[in-house]
């Protein structure tokens, strides 16, 4: 029996482990190795150059430019996305008309709202990028956003959006928010549904307003979910590859205004064939991501409200 058990264990684990080791673990290890070589082509050999790539990266204004854009997004996108997500989820769960026998209630049709809101989460980011590329079409008559602004009499706000250096990055960030709010509505709704009703009841009996119940009850009780969601959204903000690659003028333009780290890595490797240098970017991205995740977890935990 024992013999049969071990044969079974090995038999069942071998294939998944081999596939995983070849395509995930070994690239992970190799990424560090390649980052310390000057591998620059599809043929030829790679020489060990130590930390030279990292030094070059440190001095590269292009990479700092891209990193800065990711950091802007990191500061803005999660706040707005999670804020809107919490706001809508609270409305769906607590913002409804009080019916008989209920202390608080969600609005009617909350399932329908969630169905629609969540939709961008299931479709490909390529499709989202193409749609918004058209919405931002700079032509005052042909562009959806511009013609809408013209229609409601706000011609003054018409803009070239993705073509405008000061706006392009924010236009792309807005798409990121648009695509993920529904996800957080669903996530926070599920968490809110688990909060015992009698806590709200007690607060409302004591005369608390809905504003107070949100900040004193809902938010503190959801804090752990918010924190995890924050890390997840932050990692998305540190990516932005597909949106920038498809939507931006000249891949990262105009004039580098929307360049992001993953795009830099992709172009350095697969356009310029500087694989060693690009791998160093990958390692740098890993460090940035890990730092962000660790800091968020520590910082958020300290602020956690006990009840």
């Amino acid at each position, binding site marked *: 029996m024992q013999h*049969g058990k071990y044969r*079974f*264990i090995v*038999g*069942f*684990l071998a*294939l998944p482990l081999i596939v*995983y080791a*070849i*395509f*995930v673990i*070994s*690239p*992970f290890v190799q*990424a560090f190795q*390649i980052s310390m070589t000057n591998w620059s082509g599809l043929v030829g050999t790679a020489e060990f150059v130590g930390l030279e790539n990292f030094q070059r990266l440190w001095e590269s204004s292009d990479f700092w430019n891209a990193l800065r854009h990711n950091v802007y997004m990191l500061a803005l996108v999660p706040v707005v996305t999670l804020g809107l997500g919490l706001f809508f989820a609270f409305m*769906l*769960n607590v*913002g409804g*008309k*009080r019916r008989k*026998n*209920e202390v608080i*209630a969600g609005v009617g049709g*909350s399932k329908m*709202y969630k169905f*629609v809101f*969540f*939709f*961008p989460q*299931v479709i*490909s980011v*390529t*499709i989202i*990028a193409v*749609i918004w*590329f058209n919405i931002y079409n700079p032509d005052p008559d*042909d562009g959806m956003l511009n013609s809408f602004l013209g229609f409601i009499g706000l011609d003054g706000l018409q803009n070239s959006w993705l073509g405008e250096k000061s706006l392009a990055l924010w236009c792309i960030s807005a798409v990121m928010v*648009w695509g993920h709010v*529904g*996800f957080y509505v*669903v*996530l926070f709704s*599920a968490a809110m*549904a*688990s909060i015992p009703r009698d806590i709200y009841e007690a607060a409302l009996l004591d005369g608390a307003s*809905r504003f107070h119940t949100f900040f004193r009850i809902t938010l503190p009780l*959801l804090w752990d*979910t918010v924190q*995890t969601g924050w890390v997840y959204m932050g*990692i998305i903000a540190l990516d932005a*590859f*597909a949106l920038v*690659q*498809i939507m931006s003028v000249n891949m990262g333009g105009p004039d580098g205004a929307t360049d992001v780290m*993953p795009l830099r890595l*992709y172009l350095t*490797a697969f356009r310029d064939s500087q694989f060693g240098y690009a*791998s160093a970017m990958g390692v740098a*991205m890993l460090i940035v991501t890990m730092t962000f995740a660790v800091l968020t977890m520590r910082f958020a935990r300290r602020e956690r409200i006990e009840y």
Partner: protein
Amino acid sequence: MTTEEIEAVAKQDGPATPDRTPEPAKRKSSEGGVLNVFSHGILIVWGLMVGVPLLWVAWSAFKDSNGILTDPWGLPTVLHWENWSNAWEDANMGQYFVNTAIIVGGSVIGTMVLGSMAAYVLARFEFPGNRFIYYLFVAGMSFPVFMLVIPLFFVMRDFPGSSLLATYHGLILVYIAYSLPFTVFFMTAFFRTLPATVAEAALIDGASHSRTFFQVMLPMAKPGLISIGIFNFLGQWNQYLLPMVLNQQEDKYVLTQGLAMIALQQGYENDWGALMAGMMIAMLPVLVVYAIFQRQVQSGLTAGALK
């Protein structure tokens, strides 16, 4: 409430609407009325912001290029069905659809088989190295794919025998490998929740370990398999970065690549109607899955983020 508890709740399929425990009405309910109108107003505005761009794709798929460009908001006056055949044949979306279906079909099945085999062994058998292998799989969830693509490209190119770049089986293996971390994590947790007695009874009745797995445990794990299957289907159908790097041969393109290419070329080719129809072709399978499995999709994807 602990993180685990909230996550456990957030992962449930449970209704987001409050419990309807009947209790006597205690106070007047004037506050809800105004708030309800306000809530619906804001929720509808966001619903339109999400829904209209998506509907726009649907109705634009029936307009000619001229109509899409000069009157972006207008409904089609004549239904241009030829957009669909243009997209399917001339723009090769048919080929890309077939490629995507083969790759995703193979990799979803492969992921579920390999993932649940590994998860079953890790969840239900004790052996030296069990924890190590489990954490090795789970660690993969935190590797940024961007860091891995450069070495992965060379692993695929230099694969013993023949290059795996731009091949169906190569992409299937990669998709499986990158889906294993979450699948193993999810299914291990799922197998732990199943009663051990059933498997023991089967073994005592003389079934082998493999037979017990395939004929007893897998059928019991069906709800978990459905969730993880949908999760992997959506993720793999919409995958963009991996095919961009590993599948640079046009006749092997998947839908997301094809769409990005057509979108980026539009300036020259100008068949916007075909692009819109192509987007619908790429979106329809996802739309169908989402419409049917709405609840599982929402709970599965939110559980996926809280890994």
